[in-house]
C-alpha cells in the first residue's frame, strides 16, 4: 500500500488533530476518528487541526463534543475498513451494543447530538440518533408523544385545537 504524504497512521503513531468546542475546551483525537465528520474530513485532508492550531467548532459545546467523539472513536476502525467488509459478526454485534447504549441518554443530550451530527455531517450518528427519537414516537398517540418528548401540558386552548385536528386527522389513526 502506498502511503500518502500526509500519512494515514500506518507509519507508527497515528496522526492527531485538535478540536476546540464552543466553550473553548480542547480535544485531541486521531484524525481517522475526526474524519467520520464529512465537514472535518475536508479540513483535515487540507492538513488543518494539527500542531497548536486546532479546529474551532463554535456550534458544539464540550459536553456534546465529547459524546460525539466517543461515537467517532468507537466507529473509526470499522469506517476505515470501508464499511468493514471483513468485520466479524462479533465486531458488528459489539458496535450494535455500543450504539444501543450510546443513545440511552437524556433527551436534551439527544437533541444536541442531532444538531451536532448534522452540522458535522456524521452520517452514521445522524441516523442513529434520528432512529432513537423515531422509536420514542413509534406506536404512540399524540398525547403519549407529548408526554414522552416532554411537551408542557396543553392549555385548554391548545387542547381544543388538538381535538378539532383529531377529527380532521381521523384517517391517520386507522
Amino acid at each position, binding site marked *: 500500500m502506498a502511503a500518502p504524504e500526509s500519512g494515514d497512521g500506518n507509519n507508527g503513531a497515528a496522526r492527531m488533530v485538535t478540536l476546540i468546542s464552543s466553550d473553548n475546551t480542547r480535544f485531541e483525537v486521531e484524525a481517522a476518528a475526526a474524519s467520520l465528520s464529512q465537514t472535518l474530513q475536508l479540513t483535515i485532508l487540507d492538513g488543518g487541526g494539527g500542531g497548536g492550531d486546532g479546529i474551532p467548532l463554535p456550534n458544539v459545546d464540550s459536553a456534546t463534543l465529547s459524546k460525539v467523539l466517543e461515537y467517532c472513536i468507537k466507529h473509526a476502525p470499522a469506517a476505515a475498513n470501508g464499511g468493514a467488509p471483513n468485520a466479524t459478526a462479533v465486531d458488528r454485534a459489539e458496535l450494535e451494543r455500543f450504539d444501543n447504549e450510546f443513545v440511552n441518554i437524556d*433527551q*436534551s443530550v439527544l*437533541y444536541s447530538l*442531532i*444538531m451536532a451530527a*448534522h452540522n458535522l455531517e456524521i452520517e452514521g450518528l*445522524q*441516523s442513529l440518533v*434520528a*432512529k432513537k*427519537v*423515531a422509536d420514542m*414516537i*413509534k*406506536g404512540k*398517540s*399524540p398525547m403519549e*408523544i*407529548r408526554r414522552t*418528548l*416532554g*411537551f*408542557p401540558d396543553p392549555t385548554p386552548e*391548545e387542547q381544543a*385545537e*388538538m381535538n378539532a*385536528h*383529531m377529527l380532521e*386527522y381521523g*384517517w*391517520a*389513526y*386507522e
Partner: protein
Amino acid sequence: MDSAAARDRISRLPDDLLHGILVRLRSTAAAARTSLLSRRWRHVWTQLPEIVFDNPHGPAADTVDAALARIHIHTAANNNNNSAPPALNRLAINFPHLQFAPFRIAPWLAFASRHLAGELSIRLARRRLQMEDEVDLPLMEKATSIHISSGHILLLPPSGSLFAALRTVSIAYARMDGQDMDCFGSSRCPRLQELYLWPVELVAVSDVSIRSESLQTLFYRADNTRPLEVVALKLCLLRAQGLSDSGRERSVPLQG
C-alpha cells in the same frame, strides 16, 4: 423536572432534522399523527422525502387519499411561497393482500406523476380481471424507478412522452398490450438499465420488440408473446420464459 425552557427541545430543531426523524417512522400515517402535537408540528409531516403506506388495517385507500390530498395542498402552498419543498424521493403503497379498483389507483399515479422524483412502488393483491380493469400509467418525468405489482391491465402513456430519468422498471402480474412494450425502448426511456416483466400477460397474442441502447438487464416472462425481439447494445443479462410456441426470443446483444 427541568424548567419549561429546557422541555420540548425537539420542537426547536429545524424542519429538515425533524424530517430525518419522522421519515424513520416508515409510515406516513404515523408521521401525520405528529401534526397534532402542536402548531409547530402541524405541517412538518407533509414535507417528508418519503411517503409510505403499508398498514392494511382500516380503510387503506381512504387513508392514502386523505394523506396525499393534504400533502398536495401544502406542497402547492409552499410552491406559491417560492420556498421549494424537499424532493419526494419515494412513494410506496404496499397492500399486497388488498384489491383495489382502477379508480382508486389512478389518483395515486397522478400524484406520483406530479410530485415524485425518485422511486415509485405500488404492490397490491392480484385482482380477478374484469374488462374495465384498465389503469393508465401517467408520464413520470422524474421517476428513477417504477415497481408495480397488481392484476390490472396496465396501459403505458402514448408515444411522444419521455421517462427521462427512469433507470429501473419492474412490473408483475399486470396485463399489458404488446404494442406498448416499445415504450421501454430508447426513444421513450433513454436511461433504462433494468427491466423486469416477470410475469406479465399480453392482452392479445402479439409480437414484441424492445430496442434500447441503455438496457443492461432484461427479465421477460409474458404469455402470448410471439416473437420477442430485443435489440440492446449493452445487454448483459437476458432471461426470457413463457413465450408461445412460435415465440422464440431473437435477442441481439451486440457488444457495444
